[in-house]
């Protein structure tokens, strides 16, 4: 897996709309008074520049013979005649390239750097706050650094470690009487925890509970967040290990907690999908309707799980993995 980074990505975008701007300060006004500049290329700060950049990038990729996956628009695939495959995935200006066709991979890197100004970062190690470690056992991803930074930032480095992220019989509910707290701080904190749940299925449920009170956090909710941070402190290095189990079976586990929410009696559904014995996706979500029986609640999570399986199946078909 190779990682690349595009410099000044948004400046590459081409504008379709007419956009004008005031001449920048220092520009000689005396020659052309009362005039504005029409933009031909995108600039940072424009509303349309992310889209313009992505469109330009997509065009370039399609021109090189890559196909954009329709299920995940940031995924580009090329199947070589030799049977190899090259895969590129892009997040704004961060690019990961992988595949088993090494000739094509090198060619792609060269052609991309000819088109855009690109920095090659070598083997994938650190991507969007996620540390990727390669070893003989397999590939390991974790967000240890992100957690340690978060603990430092919240001043929780010396807090009491907890064994589990959330209490077994927690009563975290809409709390009308409790003291109001700093809403902005709560939202920022929970937002970070949501991002953290990307490599940590173990906190997914706790995060989904605390994020239900983003609009009106009370002291009791803050306590729950602090407990969660305490749990993170005890296990900062936990991550997911991807290794070869010798199969490529798709499996999905679903479950539901019938009428778990105390105030509105809604259920919670959860699922996780495994491919070849490795955990790939998971989700914990409060259902949007009230279920009238536990079977019904379970049923809804089955449907949710199947949706995910179908999506994965289509992606795998795109990659021609059987």
């Amino acid at each position, binding site marked *: 897996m190779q990682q690349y980074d595009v410099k000044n990505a948004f400046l590459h975008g081409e504008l379709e709309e007419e956009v004008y701007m005031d001449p920048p300060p220092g520009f000689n006004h005396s020659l052309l008074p009362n005039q504005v500049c029409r933009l031909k290329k995108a600039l940072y700060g424009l509303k349309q520049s992310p889209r313009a950049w992505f469109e330009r990038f997509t065009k370039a990729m399609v021109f090189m013979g890559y196909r954009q996956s329709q299920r995940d628009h940031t995924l580009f695939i090329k199947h070589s005649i030799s049977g190899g495959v090259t895969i590129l995935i892009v997040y704004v200006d961060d690019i990961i390239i992988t595949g088993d066709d090494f000739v094509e991979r090198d060619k792609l890197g060269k052609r991309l750097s000819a088109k855009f100004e690109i920095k090659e970062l070598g083997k994938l190690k650190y991507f969007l706050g996620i540390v990727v470690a390669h070893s003989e056992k397999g590939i390991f991803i974790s967000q240890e650094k992100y957690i340690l930074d978060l603990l430092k930032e919240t001043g929780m480095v010396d807090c009491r470690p907890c064994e589990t992220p959330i209490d*077994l019989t927690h009563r975290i509910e809409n709390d009308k009487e409790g003291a109001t707290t700093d809403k902005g701080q709560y939202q920022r904190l929970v937002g970070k925890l949501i991002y953290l749940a990307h490599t940590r299925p173990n906190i997914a*449920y706790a995060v989904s509970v605390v994020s239900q009170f983003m609009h009106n956090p009370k002291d009791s909710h803050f306590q729950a967040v602090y407990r969660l941070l305490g749990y993170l402190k005890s296990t900062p290095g936990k991550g997911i*290990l991807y290794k070869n189990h010798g199969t490529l079976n798709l499996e999905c*586990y679903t479950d539901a907690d019938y009428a778990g929410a105390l105030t509105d009696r809604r259920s*919670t559904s959860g699922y996780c999908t495994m491919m070849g014995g490795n955990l790939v996706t998971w989700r914990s979500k409060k259902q949007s309707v009230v279920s009238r029986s536990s079977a019904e609640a379970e*049923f809804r999570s089955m449907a949710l799980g199947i949706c995910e399986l179908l999506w994965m199946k289509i992606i795998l078909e795109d990659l021609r993995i059987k």
Partner: protein
Amino acid sequence: MYCDNKAAIAIAHNPVQHDRTKHVEVDRHFIKEKLESGLICTPYVPTEEQLVDILTKGVQNPVFKNTLDKLGMKDLFHPA
């Protein structure tokens, strides 16, 4: 596709429309369609082996730790 509720599995396979399942109709037909096309199968998994409990409720140790091991969550640098 593993589910620990036998009733839900039975309903998914059962072609007869019950009164009680009326309001989950869309989900039902969706699942049934996928079952019939052979895309998925739905074995029953006992609660002890259910891995997603940690996604739907608060779970205590040692179940919590066991589940994480099964999910492949490890601490490479500080193995416990």
